[in-house]
């Protein structure tokens, strides 16, 4: 089932949580909504689910206008951040809930429900735990029960709110891989919300980067990491450094000095230069480059990170770059470097 969101707007007490958001999700895609807290990603998910009503705009499931339907009619599977398992019901009763509350005519036979529950438990690798209560399960097991419960109603779309948020790092990694695998096997259109970029980049077919109630960029992991289209995406995803620069013809200058790189487009005359710490070289003396004072040097796993102060001593710009492990520089000494991959965003008009 493909999902289309068109010009969606949501206000809470006149404050816009979501502002003119449009998004097309292809059938069977695994989509991550990524953004800092307050970016509107959970609101968007809840609007798709029907747990909130939009102030304006529409949501389409296929050709159907889902925004005219209630949450019950939309037939979605929603996995809540804290799972929201029914604590007074066993695992089996939790999973069967969506089937047992169906009106008499649509409700499967008891034996059929039992069979479906057994199948689902097997699918989430929890066979044998059907008689347990939620408080007798680990976090990762609860998560999978919540997923099985959502899948029991054979949803058109699977929506997950911070699916790994409440788990410890190791379980999180395991479940991440498991969810990708699960998605590939079942082929459901899946949307999940996360604030963890690593999770989004690793798991999703496409990542929707959100900020302040708007979509900043939609693209594959490579797109959003290598070709960020806004200063926000550049600084939000991965590590980055930024410096104010001016462009004069073929030369990019920082504080009037050429820094040895040339712009790709000519229509910018002042903007912010973004680059990633690993995309730098230390040029031989004499070549134009950026120059900074080393304020600290840190060893980080297989690399060495240099903290540099660039510009006037009173109000320097702080920049982090990766330098070869063998480099030996004293704190306070000056270090010259040049970005190899970068992007300049013009100052906001």
């Amino acid at each position, binding site marked *: 089932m493909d999902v289309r969101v068109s010009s969606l707007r949501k206000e809470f007490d006149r404050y816009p949580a979501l502002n003119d958001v449009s998004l097309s999700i292809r059938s069977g895609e695994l989509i991550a909504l990524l953004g800092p807290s307050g970016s509107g990603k959970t609101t968007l998910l809840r609007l798709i*689910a*029907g*747990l909130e009503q939009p102030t304006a705009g529409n949501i389409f499931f296929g050709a159907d206008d889902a925004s005219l339907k209630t*949450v*019950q009619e939309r*037939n*979605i*599977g*929603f996995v*809540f951040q*804290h799972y*929201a*398992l*029914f*604590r*007074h019901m066993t695992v089996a009763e939790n999973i069967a*809930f*969506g089937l047992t*509350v*169906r009106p008499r005519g649509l409700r499967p036979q008891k034996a059929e429900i039992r069979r479906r529950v057994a199948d689902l438990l097997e699918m989430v690798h929890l066979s044998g735990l059907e008689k347990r209560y939620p408080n007798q399960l680990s976090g990762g097991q609860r998560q999978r029960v919540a997923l099985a*419960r*959502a899948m*029991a*109603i054979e949803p058109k779309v699977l929506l997950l709110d911070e699916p790994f948020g409440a788990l410890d790092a190791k379980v999180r990694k395991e479940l991440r891989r498991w969810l990708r695998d699960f998605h590939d096997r079942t082929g459901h259109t899946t949307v999940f919300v996360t604030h963890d970029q690593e999770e989004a980049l690793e798991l999703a077919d496409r990542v929707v980067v959100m900020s302040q109630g708007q979509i900043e960029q939609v693209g594959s992991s490579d797109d959003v990491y290598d070709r960020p289209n806004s200063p926000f995406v550049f600084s939000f995803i991965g590590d980055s450094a930024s410096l104010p620069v001016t462009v004069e013809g073929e030369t990019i200058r920082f504080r009037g000095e050429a820094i040895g790189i040339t712009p790709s487009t000519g229509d910018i005359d002042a903007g912010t230069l973004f680059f990633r710490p690993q995309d730098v070289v230390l040029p031989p003396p004499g070549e134009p480059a950026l120059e900074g004072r080393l304020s600290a040097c840190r060893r980080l796993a297989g690399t060495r990170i240099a903290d540099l102060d660039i510009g006037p001593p009173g109000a320097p710009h702080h920049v982090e770059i990766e330098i070869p492990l063998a480099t030996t520089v004293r704190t306070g000494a000056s270090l010259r470097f040049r970005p190899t991959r970068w992007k300049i965003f013009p100052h906001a008009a």
Partner: protein
Amino acid sequence: MAHDPATRRLRPPTTEAPFARYALMAIAFLFLALFLLLPLAAVFIEAFRKGAGEFLAAFGDPDTIAAIRLTLLVAAIAVPLNLVFGVAAAWAIAKFEFKGKAFLTTLIDLPFSVSPVISGLVYVLLFGSGSLLGPWLRSYGIEILFAVPGIVLATVFVTFPFVARELIPLMQEQGNGDEEAALSLGASGWQTFRHVTLPNIKWGLLYGVLLCNARAMGEFGAVSVVSGHIRGLTNTMPLHVEILYNEYNFVAAFAVASLLAALALVTLLVKTLLEFHYGAEIAAGRKH
């Protein structure tokens, strides 16, 4: 590990010296014995002063039987009413945002802050002979004041905070997550309430009903004002105790009183059991 003799003498910082500890405990126990246990024992001792025969005979009196029956009837009406009201009010306050919510919350607490006599007098003003409503209703043959409806109204008024007060913090703490999950799985509003909300609050609800019932059966002030004290007709148990006592019929008075005391003890017992088994689930509202 060997303890340094200097540190071994130190107490945990939140513990007092033994003298202070025992003194505090003694004060608490003495106070309770003097003001609670002694009077409670006195009730039972007085009731059985002339033997079990006299005690049982007190319950053969038709007026006493009528009083017990009326008390049960009033509780049987007031408690379910307040159960429904309490759940509805708690649901509204805990799960929705609306204008006047703070006002409603304050209103629910009103019976706790108003003297029961005032609660009774309100109904006298509303339905008395000098009021607008009273004579109008009487022209249709409906008696409110000095009749069972007045007693029920006064009791409902006095006891309505119990269930709501118990449930509001509980439901607020639980939030909407479970309900949203049920709805997303296709459950209707009623199914969600029946299968998800109600099981989540049942122990808190039972706790509130228990306290509500104890108060409904034991209420004196408000009921006394609206009842009119008609023997065999509008006397509840607490009112009947007073009448018997004023007539120097001590054994009968204390016999009926012992029944109320027994109710209190049973309530206390069930309350303790509930707290013991489901403490975590009702902890949010445990402040009465």
